[in-house]
């Protein structure tokens, strides 16, 4: 028990260290912008007063970090009144700064959009499972047959076709030709179908392969022979015994993929103009050079990703006692 606690504390310490570094990196990213943000926002014709006002309003008039090393001045110590510490104070109190363009608090904009992205990621995962489990089981139990080859082909296609190819293709077929769904937007409940399929396609391909190899591996185990010897039907052997054991690695992948989906959603949201975090990052943040929004979005997405991964590790070691975090 004591060993377990120490191990847990170590993991937590590392997690905090990684989160601290990620936040610091995001905070300092704004420093690598060529030129200064004020000119980028206000334009080349802005007067020096306008620029000074803007910088003061967004705290950009302060030094970037505790110290600076410049060729003309050498090493210079700035003390605690700097942008890096300001951003950290904000993060701790839940304040991610104000949009450079609209002055709206960034955290408000993010939490307005965040539920949409989560909804999309979960829907994509649901669709992926719906396709992958039956297809993977079919392929695994019929190894080497036509069904198996078809599922392998499907899986490879899913992995090789990027979302920005499948997405517009789905739009063309289901929105333009068949007129079943709207091509873009997130207004009606059914609008989620095409984006979720697009986002889930790659995942379903990866999962199909995993379920397949997992089923093949489990079918060779002794307990399967026992179950068959007991006279159980093949269906019960597969669905009650094999699938239960075979799904353990799949569950881990699902957890890890939730983060990937959150990030992959950036492109899918762009294709379908889905009003999520990714679209906020691209259209309001990057396209308008509103760096505060970019910082906020990158921060929230990566912290979610780290937490999702750590949680998966935890659940995984709890599910299977043989696996211990090292």
């Amino acid at each position: 028990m004591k060993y377990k606690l120490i191990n847990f504390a170590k993991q937590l310490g590392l997690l905090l260290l990684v989160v601290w570094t990620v936040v610091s990196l995001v905070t300092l990213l704004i420093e690598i912008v060529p030129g200064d943000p004020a000119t980028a926002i206000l334009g080349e014709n802005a007067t020096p007063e306008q620029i000074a006002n803007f910088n003061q309003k967004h705290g950009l008039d302060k030094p970037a970090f505790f110290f600076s090393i410049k060729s003309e001045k050498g090493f210079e110590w700035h003390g605690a009144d700097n942008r890096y510490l300001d951003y950290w104070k904000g993060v701790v109190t839940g304040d991610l700064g104000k949009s450079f363009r609209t002055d709206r608090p960034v955290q408000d904009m993010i939490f307005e959009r965040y539920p949409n992205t989560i909804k999309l990621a979960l829907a994509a995962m649901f669709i992926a499972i719906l396709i992958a489990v039956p297809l993977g089981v079919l392929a695994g139990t019929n190894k080497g047959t036509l069904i198996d080859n078809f599922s392998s082909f499907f899986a490879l296609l899913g992995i090789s076709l990027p979302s920005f190819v499948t997405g517009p293709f789905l739009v063309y077929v289901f929105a333009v030709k068949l007129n079943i769904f709207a091509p873009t937007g997130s207004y009606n409940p059914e609008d989620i179908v095409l984006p979720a399929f697009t986002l889930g396609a790659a995942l379903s391909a990866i999962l199909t392969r995993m379920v397949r190899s997992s089923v093949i591996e489990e079918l060779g185990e002794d307990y399967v022979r026992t179950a068959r010897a007991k006279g159980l039907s093949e269906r019960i052997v597969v669905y009650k015994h094999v699938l239960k054991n075979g799904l353990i690695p799949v569950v881990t992948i699902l957890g890890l993929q939730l983060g990937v989906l959150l990030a992959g959603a950036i492109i899918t949201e762009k294709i379908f103009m889905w009003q999520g975090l990714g679209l906020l990052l691209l259209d309001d943040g990057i396209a308008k050079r509103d760096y505060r929004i970019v910082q906020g979005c990158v921060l929230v997405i990566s912290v979610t990703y780290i937490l999702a991964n750590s949680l998966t590790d935890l659940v995984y070691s709890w599910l299977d006692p043989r696996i211990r975090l090292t």
Partner: protein
Amino acid sequence: MNRLTYIGIFIAVILIIVAIFAPFIVTHDVTAINTAIKYAAPSGEHWFGTDALGRDVFSRLITGARISLQVGITVTVVSVVIGTIIGAIAGFYGGWVDKFLSGYLFNVFLAFPGLLLAIALVAFLGAGLGKLILALCIIGWVGYARVMRGQVLKVREFDFVQAARALGASNLRILFIHILPNAIQPLIVQASLGMAGAVLSEASLSFLGLGIQPPAPSWGTMIEEARGFDTLSNPQHLLFFPGIAIALTVLAFNFIGDGLREYLDPKQRKR
């Protein structure tokens, strides 16, 4: 190696030839605008049709192959070199060096999901070919470093390494002459799959407008241009050809990677 591997190698060789000789293969100037023939269907004059500005899709696709492979190969080579060095150092020296590198640094880079770090870097640095390659290398090396570390950890325990040490070989000599050549195999597989990933990442970033800048014809940019509002009801060849090009390229390198993995790992070969 199975049939798919050979198909992969075949496609990859053709791609490389096309990329090298692109200037001689193109039939039209890739940036020449002629709106009189916009959205022309594939024909004898324009094999793959023309786009919204009347540019020849075939020529743009061929030039796109060059850009795609250029980015893919550069990113893969640089990432492999950096990843190998850092991974080998972590695995070979162990102790606090390994704790810092694999325990901390790898985790920091793995903490950003997928393309997010690249998107963020390009967003702050500005778009462009050089910055795109830099961003993809920054997110790419850590995968190789992890594989390399694991390999070195394994190989350094082998008897011949002990023998070399007993003979008085220096650390550097042991690492580069004895360990690396025996640890590199899985990295070749990883590099082939990484090449597919790099091509895909370049297309993704260009699709988002953060990679190769127009009028240079990246496949990602071509797809972005193909799904403009008025194109939805227009000829689909604009979407079809670059889509197929990306899929074939990625498939080819995935085939090669999968085939090599099976070939190099006798345990998998039996299945």
